[in-house]
């Protein structure tokens, strides 16, 4: 029963959700909406488990004075302070803890946002380093990639079009980059998406039918 019951619940709810895609009637859509909203409650309990895991792993590292443990002290203090301040703000302002002037809003604007933006900004440097490696022409494939990238990049900036403005329409860089993006790029992207969509359906079917059951833990 320990395995059969979860499998039965998975199969029946999975098939019901597939049915709701084809049957918009309230007899199906209302329970389907309810099931989707119920997931929020489950997620709320999940956050308690997640928070407990963060505290356990970091307290463990702090108590053992593992390398970098002072950072873990800052992490735990930051986590506890943010949760506590957010809870107080939420109670005081009827859930509007990100209202202007709240300490939670201050934490978000002056601590979280700049740090997230800093991480995101690193992407510019990583794109440069990755592009440098990608465009080293060693094989025919790499040469094709480099040529296509050059056409697309130059075709999308004004200077590229200035270079080729003397050519007849249809042969300018802007036209070539449009062709690359519209025809070969789109075709290959759609092929990947169709394959992936079938993979999604096959995975879903395997789970609904209980063939893929590893999520039920290892106990037989």
């Amino acid at each position, binding site marked *: 029963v320990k395995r059969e019951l979860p499998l039965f619940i998975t199969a029946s709810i999975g098939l019901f959700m*597939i049915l709701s895609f084809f049957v918009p009637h309230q007899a199906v859509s209302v329970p389907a909406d309810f099931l989707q909203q119920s997931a929020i409650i489950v997620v709320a309990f999940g956050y308690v488990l997640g928070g407990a895991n963060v505290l356990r792993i970091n307290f463990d590292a702090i108590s053992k004075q593992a390398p970098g443990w002072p950072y873990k002290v800052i992490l735990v203090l930051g986590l506890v302070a943010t949760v506590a301040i957010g809870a107080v703000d939420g109670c005081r302002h009827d859930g509007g803890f990100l209202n202007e002037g709240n300490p939670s809003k201050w934490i978000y604007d002056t601590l979280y946002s700049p740090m997230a933006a800093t991480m995101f900004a690193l992407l510019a440097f990583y794109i440069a380093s990755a592009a440098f490696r990608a465009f080293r022409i060693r094989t025919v494939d790499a040469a094709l990639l480099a040529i296509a990238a050059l056409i697309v990049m130059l075709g999308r900036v004004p200077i590229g079009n200035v270079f080729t403005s003397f050519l007849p329409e249809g042969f300018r860089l802007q036209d070539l980059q449009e062709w690359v993006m519209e025809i070969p790029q789109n075709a290959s992207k759609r092929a990947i998406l169709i394959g*992936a969509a079938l993979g999604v359906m*096959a995975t879903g079917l395997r789970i609904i039918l209980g063939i893929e059951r590893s999520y039920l833990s290892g106990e037989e």
Partner: protein
Amino acid sequence: VRRLTTLAAGALCVLALSAPPSARAQSAAPADTTTLPEPASGLVVRDVANDAGRSLDLSWKASPDDARGLVTGYRLERSTAPTGPWTAVDSTAAGITEKSDQSVIRDTEYFYRVTALGPGGESPARSITGPVRATSEWINQTRWSVLVLTVLFFAFVLFYMNMAQSGRKPFVRRIPGIDAIEEAIGRATEMGRPILYIPGILDIDEIQTVAGLVILESVAKLTAKYETPIIVPVTYPIPFTIAEEMVKGGYLHAGKPDQYDPNSVRFISPEQFAYVAAVSGIMLRDRPAAHIFMGAFYAESLLLAETGFSTGAIQVAGTANVHQLPFFVVACDYTLIGEELYAASAYLSGEPKLVGSLKGADLMKIVIIVLVIVGCGFETFGIQWLSTWMDTQ
């Protein structure tokens, strides 16, 4: 069809009410900013077809003053009785003469009217439309094609699963990216370093996360076999609890449940860049010998893969997010593209039923290719029934 016709007839039942004489007198006057605009007319309200009875579509003819710039917008009002009271449900800018009312209660009769707004004020409604009500349908008529193809696909998959179960295991081509996972774990074992497994950054409602977690069990089984530590940082709480079960299950299936480390699966944060910072820290501090990225990724794909590249680890990635694939192809040693991510668990487990499902997907691809070719041919010759049938809402 009968219901739709009835509803359309109901919607078109317009109760013509004369505009107040004062308004007509004002609209006949020369147009200026103090004059009320001519009212809008011809309000039609239709029940939205193939839905759960949650919205009504409204359309009307623009005020003649709209083109002259004397209308600033339209206000839509609703009532349950033709005499009111009226409640404003929505408004539009000038020039827009269509709107959906998605705040209706199913099977409730409503009356609607539309007023034109101008610098001189609001002109009264010319007519009231109704009663009309939103009803729910039993079948979404535009999704027959999806239903037929879904049933066909499921039939293919079940057929090949049965065939595989009866002993005729289908051939599956080699997928170097998946073969590389065991090689990477072997290398980590030789170096005495852990494996880092990232099951994407989305929640469990994303099927790529499910696929990533299913692969995790096979990877955990291998790490248990080689007695190599595994680190699994997770973004959301539900995938976190499932990842714990997967890793535990992997160690159990490998016959080494006592070696399972409860600290191996770590909840980090659902915030994208907080997660990147934490995982980059793990890569640089713990120096895992292999990084395995399997799931849905966005902007963090290159941040993680490039940081991982700088540490010299073997990197295997798999995602169906086409925009992130080029980043992984550049920064990783092996990349699973699209469907290969979903095939990985079947490939790794080698279980006949799971492998059979891959062949079902292959057969469906042939059907889709044939449909695309036939559809192109039909469209070329002006035959449009296939594309109309395939059009869904």
